[in-house]
């Protein structure tokens, strides 16, 4: 996979953002670790390449906070896998974190996109 996007295009995740991405990718139903990694990579158009180390640490952390729960199940191709799903608490957290994120990006956007420098760059 890493061959598809050159290193330069990738952006390291902001602190705490991974939690949001994981929660979001579970909105459409339970998923296993590898599926979550894939989803994040695909939906970000290969900008985010999730490091597995931090992914599993994050999953562990979210599970401990009871935002997600896990149980063993079978994947589409009949492989045994550990499936994660959102808890009620997790959904609330997702809504809150998403709102926070929007506020943040809007604020950053307001600054970055305003003014002559941005105009010039677009031109």
């Amino acid at each position, binding site marked *: *996979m890493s061959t598809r996007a050159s290193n330069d295009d990738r952006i390291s995740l902001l602190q705490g953002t991974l939690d949001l991405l994981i929660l979001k990718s579970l909105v459409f139903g339970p998923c296993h670790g590898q599926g979550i990694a*894939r989803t994040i990579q695909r939906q970000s158009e290969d900008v985010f390449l999730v490091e*597995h*180390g931090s992914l599993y640490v994050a999953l562990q952390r979210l599970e401990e906070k009871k935002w997600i729960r896990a149980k063993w199940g079978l994947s589409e191709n009949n492989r045994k896998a*550990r499936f994660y799903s959102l808890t009620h608490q997790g959904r609330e957290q997702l809504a809150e974190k998403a709102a926070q994120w929007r506020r943040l990006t809007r604020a950053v956007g307001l600054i970055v996109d305003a003014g002559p420098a941005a105009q010039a760059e677009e031109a």
Partner: protein
Amino acid sequence: MFKQKRSAEDFAEELQAHIQLEVDELRLEGMSEEEARRQARRKFGSVRREQEHFYMQGRWGWLDKCLRDLKHAFRSLLASPAFTITAVVTLALGVGANTAVFSVMHTVLLRTLPVKDADRLVYLWTTPPPHGTGTVNKNETFSYPVYDALRNQNGGMEAVMAYVPLSGSKVGVRIGAQPEEAEGDMVSGDFFSGLGVSLQRGRGFTAGDEKDHAPLAVISNDYWTRRFSRDPDVLGTTLYVNGVGLTIVGVAARGFEGLEAGRSTDFWIPLQSRPELNAWGNPLDEGKTYMANPTWWCLRLIGRLRPGVTKAQAVAQLQPVFQAAAYTGLGTPSPGDKKPVLNLVDAKGFPSYGEEYGRPLRLLMGLVGLVLLIALTNVAMLLMARNATRQREFSMKLALGAGRGDFLRQLLTESLLLVTAGGLLAWLFAIYATRALGAWAQIESSLAPDGAVLRFTAAVLAVAVVLFGAVPLRTALAGGPSLAIKTSAVVSGADTGKTRMGRVFVVLQMTVCVVLLVAAGLLIRTLRDLENTPLGFSTDGLVVFGVKPQIHSPEQGREFYCNLTAKLQQLPGVESVGVMMWRIGSWSSNNNEMLVDGKLPDVPSGGSRTVRTNVVGPGFFRTLEVPMLAGREFADSDTVSSRHVGIINEEFARRFLPGQNPLGHVIDTERRNFPITIVGVVKNHKYRSIDEEPIPMAWYEYAQIPVIGRMDVEMRVHGEPLAILPAARKVVQQMDPDLPLIQPMTQRAQYDLTISSQVLFARLAGFFGLLAVVLVAAGLYGALAYRVSRRTAEIGIRMAMGARRGQVVWMILKDSLVLTAIGVAAGVPSAMLVGRALASSLYGVTPLDGTSYALAVAGVVCVALAASALPASRAAAVEPLTALRTE
């Protein structure tokens, strides 16, 4: 959270599932099975690291890690027991000796009095008091009128308290039927309240108690424990001191042992005014107790400053009061007289005691520091050598992915373990050594390694941990992971950086060893000289004890001692008996300037007119076997009504009556009380202590002096001197059942006490010298043996190339001899500096005593040769082929 919710296996399974899913997907994208598996694994990275990560997420991960480090360290230390034992014992000796000496030093010099706000307490000291006064200590004691004036000034001092012992040593006490001895002080009424010492039972004294001279006593916690087994009903018990009944009304707080330096006071009583309880146990002077006698400066004073008042301000206020009071009973000062000057000294510890023992103790501390230095470098060297041989183990670990942090932790754990073991052993050693040191130094106040000493030791140990942890790490990391690949012993032994450091350590140790040996040599020779100093008479068969009978008149006293001497003389085995007022060999003396034929004798400028006097009975010189050079000894025919006679020593005659026949001259003290006619001259002999220089002396006859109280009895007996004591005790108790024998001992033992601090000092220095030699020998042997083992291959090659065994041995020996030469070259000048610092403690040897230096150098060379011999012979025994095959 306190337990792992998921098992490690479960997590591992999840990771495997992840990789499997990835493989499936890659295969769907068209990769071959094998390619997909490889790709998936690569992408995932280290599975093991993730698992470790998971494992470490549990909160107790770090503890687990530490336990593992500890187990590992244990195992690796157990694997090399010789190294471990050497390191631990070395540490224990070095640190333990340090702790012990520090404990004693702390007690003597640094420990504050166990009182409230010790910062505001000050001792009152003075410059020498006016002419015509007698003192106990010319800087530290005051007369009662001076005390009375100072305490009533109400200025910068909140309180001025007085205290004075009831005896120069112990005082006779009776609680039940049996007489015994104890140490007691008379104190002012505000003593306990002013010092801020609380009472754990009963009450202290009041101003009223002092004014009424109330017959009360407060006992110390220690005395309560020792004598009364902590009996809760002790209050109300009657304590007979010199026959005077005193009621115990209180027990002082635990830890307060009085203000007598190096001694622990058993009981305190309010200031008294009766002949049985005169200050210092002295007989009345012209019928006056210390209270009525303004010319006897005998009280020690301690004061409490008001908050916010400095010592200078307080002194400024007290000075005029003091200087006026100082001349009470002496008339107006003559114009040329220097007035005494009061000064205040922090009362945090025992300053005068510090003077006597402080310097030797500080020097001792220096010696111990050197031993500690040797011990620490030894252990560092041992660790360096050990870890250099473990270099391949380290390189292997580095190559296998151990981080530098892991290394540091592992090495630190090993050091910690070593140091902990060494520290525990050191603590045990320190407890015994402190006790031994206290006994040797005759410091009777409680001595134990206390909290501050613990902190001090801990600091030394912490330094040791960092040092020993860091030194090998440098070596280990210098190797780098690539070293694991190299297998040649020649290659791994080739880098010279560490060996250079090792050489520096060896030279440093040699230097320190020379210094210690010279110091030990100088002190031990001093001791030998002191012990062999002729006293001027033979102490064989001499035994001495004190008695303090209840005497109300000089006649009664004369009768008592006459009787006692006669009875003792009749005991079987007794050759001769004499009595004396000041026990010889006990530092006590009475110093005066004396008139010869009515005027002060002319002495060359700068010369001293001081004469030491003593009061003795008939037969005193015969008992001591001090030869009479002229005239006669005191006899029973010298009575109060006959001509008053005296005896002088040859130094008196030489200095004050040069070229004349001293017999028939009349001498007298400045106060012109008791003129005596010289009837005899005795040979010079030691009076106060072994190391005193000859000084003019004069003796009075006790029957002719109206001052009579405690006396010491000197007996010369056949056979074992102490065996006569039970019989003597029986004689004394037949005369008065209340009388104990005070401090009975052989006269030799009494003189030996006067050099006890030198003896202690010399013994300790000798001990440290020996310790240093042992440590240096062990260190040198370890270092050389290690170097030879590293050069096995090189030696093999040399021998294969035709080197003879003799050459190999010489090569090894030369190596250590060069180091020794450098060490000696550096050590001798350093030792000279130390010798200069020791000069004041030496007796009979100069600081540049050649023998001591020669012996020290010879000692170090012997140690070096002995420590090199074994490695050298091992080197010579190397079989060239075997050595090369170990490659």
